[in-house]
């Protein structure tokens, strides 16, 4: 991988297909895996862990709070879930920046970097991080933080996968806010229902 990296002339590099054509032309054989694939796999794993972790954190915390008491075992399971979620966040961010390095080395410019779908995704990832801190600082209660975390992870996943999505930044962010509000009421509804059953 290092040899490939070293022997690349990045001025000629132009996204995935041309990158592979270039490797083919120069007869550069990749023994392990090229960077694009490595970042892509890491990005997918990170997002899966993040979105899955956020979902399970929600499900497990509601399950744990059913009897209005969090046992030590439940607390440990939640801690592990949050740990997995953070690993997911780290993998997503680091591989995301890996993509940005490839874009930068290929001089892709504003079409890629200032793309509205990409900027929305970046904002949502920043919200994920700041939301976790705000919850830890107790600036916002869990009832608000949880739907933000859940919807943010799914939004990042959808924005990353839906490449043909061609809507403005404001439309994406407005839809995201609406989804957070819907999730807030939905999760509260489930919580109240749980409380009624337990009483």
């Amino acid at each position, binding site marked *: 991988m290092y040899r490939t990296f070293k022997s690349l002339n990045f001025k000629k590099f132009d996204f995935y297909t041309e990158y592979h054509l270039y490797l083919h032309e120069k007869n550069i054989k990749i023994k392990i895996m090229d960077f694009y694939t490595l970042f892509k796999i890491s990005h997918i794993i990170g997002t899966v862990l993040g979105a899955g972790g956020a979902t399970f954190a929600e499900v497990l915390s509601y399950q744990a709070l059913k009897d209005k008491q969090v046992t030590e075992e439940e607390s440990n399971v939640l801690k592990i879930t949050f740990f997995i979620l953070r690993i997911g966040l*780290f993998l997503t961010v*680091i591989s995301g*920046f890996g993509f*940005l*390095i490839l*874009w930068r080395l290929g001089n892709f*410019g504003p079409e890629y*970097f200032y793309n509205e779908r990409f900027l929305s995704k970046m904002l949502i990832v*920043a919200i994920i991080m700041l939301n976790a*801190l705000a919850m830890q600082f107790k600036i916002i209660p869990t009832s608000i933080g949880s739907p933000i975390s859940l919807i943010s992870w799914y939004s990042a996943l959808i924005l990353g996968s839906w490449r043909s999505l061609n809507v403005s930044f404001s439309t994406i962010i407005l839809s995201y806010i609406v989804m957070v509000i819907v999730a807030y009421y939905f999760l509260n509804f489930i919580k109240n229902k749980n409380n009624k059953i337990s009483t």
Partner: protein
Amino acid sequence: MSSLLVFFLSSHIFLGIIAIAFFYSVTMNLLKREVNLFSFKRNSFGGLLAFILSWLTGGYYYVFYYGDNVKPIIKQGLYPWAHNFIMELKEHIFLYLPFLAFIVFIASYSMQDKLKENENLRKSLAMLSLTVFILGLLVAFMGIVISGAVKR
């Protein structure tokens, strides 16, 4: 761009992100009821080291490549403000980030005994670490904006 410069630019970015992740972890740790001192020391050291290495690799790239090769492209392009304003701002914040990180690291050793009893100290350190994290995040976003303005 030579492979050394590619390596330095990539290292600058990755190390910066790793440093931000370390300070995120330090902040989270300091906000807990019981601070894990070992984790506090290890992560603040890791963050400081990553910031310093990111500083050096980024500095080398900036001095030996950016000024002559990238800056003119940005200035002639559609987004000259990406250099004139964003890069200037990024440079200045970036210069003092390792110093702030150093203060957190020193505190993790010199004030460790007082952390348990002095809640105000713990909160102040958490705020400082949070400042490092948010500034780091800001610098990373500014890096994205600057990179986006480079188009041949």
